């Protein structure tokens, strides 16, 4: 492993485990630093903490927040709460897939520019349907508006 990466991981260790924080916090920090959880980070921490890697994977696969594959530069999160659902979230999702030429089972575009995800509810139901792009919230979305918004991120 590169020295630089090891330094980052050691930094995370000092910030979390050394203060009594648990695996979930460790993984949240790893993901914040690298965008996703890599196998080598898990192995490094497993050796460092003497906790089996399987335990890390148990937690990673349980919580929807953690990702084992790299994600795109822009994260598009479509809210699929009840209100967004009845107000047409699925039409927005199919528009995004169309525009980005994303296959049904693929979350990330080939050029690594976009990753499409969904969230159970962002709690902004009064402006449904809601789409969040890189933490910016867009309310009262429709397929047309979505296409326009996507374009601004393509440049």
């Amino acid at each position: 492993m590169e020295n630089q990466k090891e330094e980052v991981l050691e930094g995370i260790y000092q910030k979390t485990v050394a203060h009594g924080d648990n695996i979930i916090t460790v993984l949240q920090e790893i993901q914040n630093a690298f965008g996703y959880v890599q196998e080598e980070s898990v192995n490094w921490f497993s050796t460092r903490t003497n906790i089996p890697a399987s335990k890390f994977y148990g937690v990673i696969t349980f919580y929807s927040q953690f990702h084992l594959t790299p994600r795109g530069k822009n994260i598009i999160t479509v809210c699929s709460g009840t209100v967004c659902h009845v107000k047409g979230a699925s039409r927005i999702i199919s528009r995004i897939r169309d525009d980005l030429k994303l296959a049904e089972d693929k979350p990330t575009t080939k050029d690594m520019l976009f990753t499409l995800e969904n969230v159970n509810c962002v709690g902004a139901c009064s402006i449904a349907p809601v789409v969040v792009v890189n933490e910016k919230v867009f309310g009262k979305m429709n397929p047309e508006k979505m296409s326009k918004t996507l374009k601004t991120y393509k440049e």
Partner: protein
Amino acid sequence: MNGEIIVNVCMGTGGIAAGAEMVMKAFQDEFAAAGLENATVQNRCKLHKVGCRGFCAKDVLVDISVDGEVSTYQYIQEDMVKRLVREHVVGGKPVKEWMAGDDYHIFHDNQTKVILHDLGKINPESIDDYLTVDGYTAARKALTAMTAEEVINEVKNSGLRGRGGGGFPTGLKWSLCAANEADQRYVICNADEGDPGAFMDRSVVEGNPHAVVEGMIITAYAIGATRGYVYIRAEYPLAVHRLRIALDQARERGFLGEKLFGGSFDFDIKIKLGAGAFVCGEETALIASIEGERGMPRAKPPFPANKGLWGKPTIINNVETLANLPPIINKGAEWFASLGSEKSKGTKVIALTGKIRNTGLIEIPMGMPLKDIIFKIGGGIEGDKLFKAVQTGGPSGGCIPQQFIDLPVDYEGLKSVGSMMGSGGMVVLDETDCMVNIAKFFLTFTQEESCGKCVPCRIGTKRLLEILTRITEGKGKKGDIELLQELAEDVRDSSLCGLGMSAPNPVISTIKYFRHEYEAHINRKKCPSKVCNKLLTFFIRPDQCVGCGMCAKACSVKAVSGELKQPHQIDNALCIKCGSCYDVCKFNAVVKD
């Protein structure tokens, strides 16, 4: 205060999405610009970030107060600020046509605000603002003038019940916890608001985080806990940010840390970010998650009040429950018990959403009839469509049809019709919503969120979803309704935790009240509300079609054909019923049947 001018801009998630940050900046710029001619105005102006005011449908909401006279403006955008400053702030004449109308006042006048009283009035990032509305006086009173037992009794007598869903009496839960011999006890604030369609807790934490902190201090004192945790969703970054600020400020003032309020009681709070698992709203799963494990529920008893976090007695209260405590301690149990209905005391914060005119965050006295919520506060159904049902309690709740419109909204009332209070989400559905599709939506959710520990929940929800899916795709079979009912009862009766026990509720209640919709899907292969695309046929009305070609462009399978400026046609043999043509048509020429 002579000549003081205060401008309040709504900066909740809804407000920010509607452009509040730009509005805020526009005010700052305009004040700076106006200050050149009229420095006194600029000096007297204050800009506050205020939390959610509830009426998110009308964002960005702006209050301009001149000499204590408040005018509320709705739908404000940055380009409108210039005129507001020029005419109202400088000129002294409110801009009448932008002011909030009667519906804004009807919306607020029919509510009883205890929890939301200070939301939208105080700056959530300022402890001084909270102190001006009697902040931390209840915690001070409890810690300096009352014994722990007296605090517990006060809460018991108030009749407060848990606002997270179960409705368990809060005071009783506390006394069970306090009765345990232990060297350590914990208080956990459950802010893992995972129900789709609910944002009460987010709004309270974003709008008045100190109230939650104060509630936790009171709880900790009552049960003798020195450590507290707030378990909050990572999907609520603004709420987490403001909570962090609140905790730091409380520590600075000596409201958290050692020797609180100069006494001998120590208490501090740590934030734990949830990692996206709905089941972690369940108490034992939440505890497992704080301990760093997979968030899987375990059998009860032992209850967390006896054996919780790291095996120590633990009290888990929901955000709204905690925020109720300061007013109870300050105003007394009797005052609280005078609000609400016979068995459900106090008020309830509700996220009123869906196909309703006035969506937003509201607070009602327990027991208010459903029709008052929907037609008075909510202003009726959006677009003058017909009311069909209201879904309460999120994925654990049920759908309540028109016939129960007079139902009192409290724990018992909702339960009597097969739904539940849940955390307080209320989604209004109109005639264009398909109830089979709604049931399928919730089952998709619970099936995904089932932790997998119990077979009935893990596999049962999957099978329920499969049956619902085939019904919505026109492959429903005779006997499917009975199969759904039987399976739903089995899942409900044999699951370990609340998730599994309540997951079938949406299926059970929609079959009970909307059986005819299921039958139409299965027997006639029709979706009466025209939602389930696979059961629809799309065609183009030649008299409406202008031949713009948008539908042909949108069709991914080239099922639409036609010359430009001539009516188009859809070839049903090719059509995959995706509905794209319907979405793009601006002339209502594409129809589905």
